[in-house]
């Protein structure tokens, strides 16, 4: 309330700041999408803590950790498919790189996590570059099959090198992290990755990728190098998948390459794809939500229903039906649904206002 003082006594032309009320402040925070991710992370950390201390069901934290670990791959895939218009079925194979880096660097060689991270990411970047170069020559369906082939090569390579891998104990910065605490690591990483990806999407890079997706000719005429952005998209996607594999290894601690429904089988690539489709091609939140449907729903909620506990395949069945229905009738996925609901709510609010106060 110092407006009067400022108007009459300020010497250097300072304009008084409006004091903002708490609701205004909250609204300002909610208007910035980056804070949404932070808020989400904070809530999830609290839920994870409550679950680890058995206030909430104990199985919740492992379900969350698994969902978030897979979500890393989904977010990368969302960037690849929704923004660059490229598709790949190599996700599963790329995730294996993270798993094997952890096994060989940490379990076998006994080196710290940082080394495993550097090794895995370097291999991931190289592989991403290779697929990116391939994508310049081979497009569309052919590219999908080719990445599928690459993923199979990787899987057979894993089988040939060592079928069963494990991680006995996990240390980060000298602190031993038990399995039940891995949820914190995964959550923090996911929030960071989501924020970075969000920034990229709204940056010139995101726009360039969208331009490339819509029309390669127009994009090139605008100075966008297909090579640069395709390589970039694949590198990001691959790196995220590698991180996802590492996080899964930290969460689950063991993996089998010959397992037909394991981490790096074809089914993982398909599930990640389905997750992104269900969530909506171009939405980070959608990708995470879709992953929750594909991976989290079962472990966290539905396993409590005895019927589903006996018939876990029902979830696979239903998720398949969901994917088909979404592609056929709701190509925008859950993100589109949320958008439409929001629009509807807004319209209803406007209508109620008009009902009460009359037209403006």
């Amino acid at each position: 309330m110092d407006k009067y003082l400022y108007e009459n006594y300020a010497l250097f032309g300072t304009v008084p700041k409006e004091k903002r009320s708490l609701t205004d402040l909250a609204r300002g925070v909610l208007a910035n999408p980056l804070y949404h991710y932070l808020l989400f992370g904070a809530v999830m950390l609290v839920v994870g803590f409550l679950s680890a201390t058995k206030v909430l069901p104990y199985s919740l934290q492992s379900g969350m950790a698994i969902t978030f670990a897979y979500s890393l791959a989904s977010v990368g895939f969302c960037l690849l498919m929704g923004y660059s218009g490229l598709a790949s079925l190599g996700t599963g194979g790329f995730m294996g790189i993270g798993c094997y880096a952890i096994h060989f660097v940490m379990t076998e060689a006994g080196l710290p996590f940082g080394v495993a991270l550097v090794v895995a990411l370097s291999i991931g970047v190289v592989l991403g570059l290779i697929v990116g170069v391939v994508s310049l020559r081979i497009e569309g369906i052919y590219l999908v099959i080719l990445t599928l082939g690459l993923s199979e090569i990787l899987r057979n390579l894993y089988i040939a090198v060592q079928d069963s891998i494990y991680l006995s104990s996990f240390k980060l910065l000298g602190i031993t992290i038990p399995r039940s605490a891995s949820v914190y690591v995964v959550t923090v990483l996911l929030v960071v990755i989501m924020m970075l990806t969000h920034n990229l999407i709204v940056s010139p890079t995101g726009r360039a990728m969208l331009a490339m997706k819509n029309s390669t000719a127009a994009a090139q005429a605008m100075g966008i190098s297909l090579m640069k952005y395709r390589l970039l998209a694949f590198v990001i996607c691959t790196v995220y998948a590698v991180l996802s594999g590492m996080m899964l290894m930290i969460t689950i601690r063991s993996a089998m390459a010959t397992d037909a429904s394991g981490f790096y089988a074809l089914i993982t690539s398909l599930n990640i794809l389905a997750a992104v489709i269900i969530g909506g091609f171009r939405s980070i939140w959608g990708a995470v939500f879709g992953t929750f449907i594909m991976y989290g729903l079962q472990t966290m909620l539905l396993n409590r229903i005895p019927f589903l506990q006996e018939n876990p395949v029902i979830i696979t069945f239903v998720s398949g039906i969901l994917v088909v229905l979404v592609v056929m009738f709701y190509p925008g996925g859950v993100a589109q649904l949320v958008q439409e609901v929001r629009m509807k709510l807004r319209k209803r609010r406007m209508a109620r206002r008009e009902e009460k106060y009359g037209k403006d």
Partner: protein
Amino acid sequence: MAKTKLFPTAQQRLLPLQQRRRRLQLQLDALEQTVSARQAEKLAAYGAKLDRSLMKDAFAACDKEAYAQQILEQKLQKFDVRQNMDRRAVNHGCSKAIFTAVEAGGDWQELLKKQRQELDALEHKRSEYLAKLTAEKEAFVAKNSSADGAGYEKAKEKAQALYESRRTALETEGQQLVAKKRAKLTGQLAALDRRIAGIRSGVRSETLPEDVLLRVKGLKMYFGGLKAVDDVTFDVKKGEIFGLIGPNGAGKTTVFNCITRFYDATDGSIHFVNKEDEVVDLRQFQVHDVILQGITRTFQNVELVREISVLDNLLVACTREYQSNLLVQALGLPSLKREEEALREKARRILKFMGLESYANWLAFGLPYGILKKVEIARALMSDARLIIMDEPAAGLNDSETAELTETIRRIRDEFGVTILLVEHDMSLVMNVCDTVCAISFGKMLAIGTSRQIKENPAVQEAYLGVEGDA
């Protein structure tokens, strides 16, 4: 598609250097302005700090009556805003009820009375609130003793002295900063120039006549046995509107796909005076580097990004202008935001020029075709091109839109000083707007000249209308 060469040619290596040089030059030109703006910002922040520290003394010195009055008014204003909404709700609800009552032949006068009562109640509430505020005000004035100006005057003088010394300090600091940065930038520029000169000494440079912007000479493009373009030669002069016409399948689009490097021409040369005022052989560049030389194009079928706004679509053309690298973009640092804002401002200016400012925040998806065509032209203007190539800009437009387009093309040429190359078969547009017209048919040159000459040229008439007596 043009083949990617494994090793970059000298021209390609020059490209990023020149781009960096241009940016450095811009920084250097704007150096004083940026520094003084930053210093002014600092000074203002300091002033605000001083102002804040003054407020306590100011309160002691102020007229308590006026101070309290203003607080009262502010509170009352807030109250009124809320009450106006209530009043509106009462009016709206009652008039609706009265209306239905009149229709049904009910007792509407009773309702009218009720409305008046409710409004009176609101008025009563307001006067009650006002009385409460007045009481508060009087209590405040009574509690705080009257004005004491001496302390304020002393503080004021002190603050003014501090402000002055701060200002001079900032000014000298700014000058030093400018000198330091200028030395650094000039050094960088000189080093860059040396590198550029070193590379350029190995390049055999062509010369073009003073007024020529683009010279296409002996251009040939064969698809297997098909001679899509066969020996086409023309000059585009600076600042003119050049039309390339021909019947369907004449090879117009192929010619300009060769210029913009979407096709790698079989033979022939394409020379262009680029943004650095030097003659370059366009055939040395990759398709996405052509825009950096100063050539941009529009598409026959609108090729915009549907998922983002019109404004963002314009920014797509500036992808290569950003200095922020990937890391800066991923972290969303302020330097990126500053860059974005400057480019957005430019985009808004161009949208305004095109009369599209009201569409700036619309999604490109679902806008009418005529608007989208204009957005494409606006996007072409974003890259500060020297030559804009338009691929059948009139396709899909009606007569009035075509007339408007004619006007727009002229205005663009005059306002932005760009040269325009039209590829078109809408003869009315070409004849109206073009200074020079080149007609081709079946890949071969027919004629080149002013639009009148072309119209009267028998070969062109034959190509368009068929040989007399042949029909």
